[in-house]
């Protein structure tokens, strides 16, 4: 609830200490919900707590995680980005087209072009929202459609596969036993956490979402901040595009359909308000993990796919209820 109170001042007394702990829990009720979920899953499935499975979960959430982090920036400014799935697919396609085994391109080329493709589309969103005041929902809905169209046109509707091993490493490689996508996700998370917490840009993102008028009156260039968050989201879609193409060994024209829902869900489950100005990247991390753990757990348990949908929906609601009811008690 209270996004600012954790910039804690040095305190000494015991009650202050207790306040900080309950404050932490009510700030991060979603962590409690996550822990409860994990405990339940590890009781019902002996496989859940295995190191390999936990790495699986992390690898599985890494793409949604990267998208959700960009989405957090956007939502903090009261915006929304519906186009993440399509932008990701487009970036994947562009990157893959330069990463096929016999293209002979150095790895840097597909990487750069993939990120650039995402960034470019994100900038278009940003300009239209920030400069031409198109409502974010409409602009990014348009982009959802346009980027998908571009993906079809660019790829002629065909998947691109036979990607070079060095490119595939991005999605399938390991570094000191940790999957590369997980490392990428972690790096993006830390950078975003640091940015939102410690940089002036991060503070301005909160201010623009919290009260755009106040932000403007304080001399903040609101439209520049607004533009930036869409650009960031686009850039991260570019990264997610590289990751998904490398992970599935192919860029598919239909990749990422409906991914916006999971990304937004992670952000909202993590306690960031769609009304802007309030929320945290740590919440998003746990939102992403909750969704991932639910999917993984239901798969591990072999719950029938009909009941999966029912159970998945119910767990999401209950997790958030748990979070919110904690809040109202404190």
């Amino acid at each position: 609830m209270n996004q600012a109170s954790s910039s804690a001042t040095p305190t000494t007394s015991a009650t202050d200490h207790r306040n900080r702990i309950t404050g932490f829990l009510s700030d991060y009720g979603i962590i409690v919900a996550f822990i409860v979920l994990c405990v339940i899953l590890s009781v019902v499935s002996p496989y859940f707590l295995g190191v390999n499975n936990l790495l699986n979960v992390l690898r599985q959430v890494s793409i949604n995680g990267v998208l959700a982090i960009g989405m957090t920036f956007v939502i903090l400014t009261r915006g929304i980005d519906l186009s993440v799935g399509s932008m990701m697919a487009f970036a994947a396609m562009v990157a893959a087209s330069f990463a096929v085994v016999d293209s002979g391109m150095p790895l840097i080329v597909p990487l750069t072009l993939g990120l650039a493709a995402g960034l470019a589309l994100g900038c278009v969103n940003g300009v239209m929202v920030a400069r031409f005041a198109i409502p974010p929902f409409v602009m990014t809905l348009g982009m959802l459609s346009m980027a998908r169209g571009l993906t079809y046109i660019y790829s002629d509707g065909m998947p691109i596969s036979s990607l070079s091993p060095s490119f595939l490493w991005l999605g399938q490689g390991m570094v000191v036993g940790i999957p590369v996508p997980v490392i990428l996700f972690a790096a993006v998370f830390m950078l975003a956490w640091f940015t939102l917490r410690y940089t002036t840009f991060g503070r301005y993102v909160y201010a623009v979402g919290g009260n755009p008028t106040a932000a403007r009156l304080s001399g903040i260039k609101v439209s520049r901040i607004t533009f930036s968050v869409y650009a960031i989201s686009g850039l991260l879609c570019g990264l997610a595009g590289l990751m998904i193409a490398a992970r599935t060994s192919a860029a598919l024209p239909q990749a990422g359909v409906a991914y916006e829902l999971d990304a937004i869900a992670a952000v909202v489950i993590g306690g960031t308000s769609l009304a802007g100005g309030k929320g945290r990247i740590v919440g998003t991390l746990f939102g992403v993990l909750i969704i991932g753990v639910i999917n993984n757990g239901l798969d591990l348990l072999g719950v029938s796919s009909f009941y999966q949908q029912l159970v998945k929906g119910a767990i999401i609601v209950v997790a958030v209820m748990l979070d919110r009811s904690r809040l109202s008690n404190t």
Partner: protein
Amino acid sequence: MSTPLLHAEGIAKSFSGVPALTNGQLSLRAGTVHALCGGNGAGKSTLLNVLMGILQRDAGYVQIDGREVNFPSPHDALDTGIAMISQELEPVPDMTVAENIFLGREPRLMGALVDHRRMRLQAEQLLRELELHLPANARLGSLSIADMQMVEIARAISRDARVIIMDEPTSAIGERETELLFAAVERLKARGTGIIYVSHRMNELYRIADDYTIMRDGTFIETGAMADIDRHRLITTVLGKELDEEYAKYNRPGADTLLEVDDYGRGKDFERVSLDLKAGEILGIFGLMGSGRSEFLDALFGAAPAERGSARLRGAPFQPREPGDAMRAGIAYVTEDRKGSGLVMGASIKRNVTLASIPDVARNSLIHEGMEDAVATPFVERLQIKASSLDMPVKQMSGGNQQKVVLAKWLQTQPSILLLDEPTRGVDVGAKREIYAFMSEFARDDRAIIMTSSEIPEVLGMSDRVIVFRKGRISGELHGDELTQENLVRLSS
């Protein structure tokens, strides 16, 4: 005569073709306080918003140090050394006090990082200087309106600006805080800062202003030294008609008890509150900021029900659990925060006036627009609400006029008990008098008013009896001759 610090002339601004300002003019000298006077809707805020680059003028020019300037955005005005406390509070609720104060100019590390520690220390120092007892790391949204206002004041003052615009900075704060502000203003003056000051409280103007400028209907009327204009003439010029500033008080309390409150309490907000309200009475509640007055009124209205104690209304047990309960019992409540809890800012005047009495303008659940107009129109006249039409969204109205819409909304419910929390916030002298006259007329027969106000003259002038709150408890009750400023101050602090 030296060049003025800031000079504006011929400023015009219209909204959708409707002129709000036709000829704004103002000359501010360095090291002085300049009172900008005018009735509600005279165009003061519009002029100030133009000066600040929030609005773009249609005509006229602005000079700083004799050089013409044009601010496309507040950013540019701030860069040039102009800061503003805007009339409407603009807090970022989920940021801390320190973050709000330093928004846009945070102490930095390595160019792009916020130096949180230094920011907090500087904020603490600033708050200390201003004698504000606010934690620098409290979330702004958890503060009262008054405290938020003080934070905005602190923000503007700490900017080291050469010109500070203060658009009704005191409308939401108490006497003590006002004194703190004035002390700061004196320090700023001494440093050569020029201050443009807007307030509908005449006492304040005579205390701190050096010069004045009067506007009416969007036009400059006259300017001069404060010392050269007496109160009567100031008011008459502002309103454009003869009017004495006085409290229209002719209600007469009866003997019947209307409402009895016994041992009310809720959380840490207030406790052991027992009082009664007589028919025909205007009961004042006075206290410092944060003394729990508003919270007590919230409880009486069922907006945040009391947790302890009981109440009786006309002898029958009264236990409001939600506003509807209190409304059915004939209670109306003008809250202190018109933007947050009083008005639907995007909706029209008409719809706001009828908001609390929608069933009254409907037959069989169908809204009767004719009835709606019929309901709203008299208030526009009665309260001198200045608006181009009843269909104007309230967010386009001047602040004082918005306040009148809130009053109208509650009067329309035809209550028998009125709870008024700072009822004349931002209202001009003319309309204030109307409101006072109305209050006196209202509190008759079996009707009564409970009023809180931070304006001591208003409390003294209008109340038959005053109950003083201190830290959530009643610290005393004053009648007749005991009703003096000294007693109020003594009991409240």
